[in-house]
């Protein structure tokens, strides 16, 4: 599965890593709903670690879409909410 970490590019990760990411994704979601920055940063940090340690960087010339996208490693809840509200991308 191809995963992008915002600000870092794409990685190809294994099935095992993909399963871990799914768990962490649920934690991220809960943290966002609770507005809990501490829990959010912990879950995001763990997700980013999984991708970086398990994944192989996708060659930049490949021009593929990622299946899932992780927020920037130093993002907080507010920033992700802003991103999810979409307007920010239309620069």
């Amino acid at each position: 599965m191809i995963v992008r970490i915002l600000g870092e590019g794409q990685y190809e990760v294994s099935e095992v890593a993909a399963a871990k990411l799914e768990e962490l994704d649920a934690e991220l979601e809960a943290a966002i709903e609770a507005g809990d920055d501490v829990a959010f940063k912990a879950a995001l940090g763990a997700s980013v670690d999984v991708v970086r340690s398990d994944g192989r960087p996708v060659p930049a010339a490949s021009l593929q879409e990622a299946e899932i996208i992780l927020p920037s490693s130093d993002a907080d809840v507010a920033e992700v909410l802003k991103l999810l509200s979409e307007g920010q991308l239309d620069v």
Partner: protein
Amino acid sequence: MSVMKRVSLIFRAKANRALDKLEDPRETLDYSYQQQVEMLTRVRRGVADVATSRKRVELQMNQLQKQVQTKENQARTALGQGREDLARAALEQKSGLQGQYQSLQQQYQGLQEQEEKLTLASQRLQTQVDAFRTRKETIKATYTAAEAQTRINEAFSGISEEMGDIGLAIQRAEDKTAQMQARAGAIDELLASGALENHVGGSPDYIQVELDRMGANNEIESEMARLRGELSPGSSEPPKQLPSGPGEGL
């Protein structure tokens, strides 16, 4: 729905909106390529801006470091002259300056990371833009408009995600740089006005003023002693004593 999936859908939606706007798919290629080249320029400017900010913070850190050293020296001099109060005040100011320094140091590291990320992003984008250009020419030369559609969509969506990502990265860098500049401006003003040294006493640097005054008094006293010695060697009546200054010490 999953957060990570939702973020990716937002990027896809953006790519689709852009594709929908254009009627001839091959027109998409040229339009997109043009945007990519513009984005490359923007990301390079972003790298340069962050570097400028970083260098400014570096200069301020050096200045603060010097002031910390000054305060240390003042404390030592004051203590040598038996003025514990002044030594204490100097050390307090030193600690305030060190706090400022540490906060600058954190920001410096933040800027360094931004700079590295953006530099890598610009290299990545350069590679993608080159790949896109090659693919664009192939698609234009080989396929009819209808056939080209799928291939264009693939290439476009891939690069669009990267462009969206880099667009966000530049925004973040710009925000951070703007914050830093506001902060750096404030610190420059503080450094220039001497106000950083000023939060305990009144005059620009009352500790230095006091130390200088004490130094001058000592000099006067030793001059006085010399003159007395010259005027009345072995005299039994010492000349009239001048009142000594309040800060007189040995």
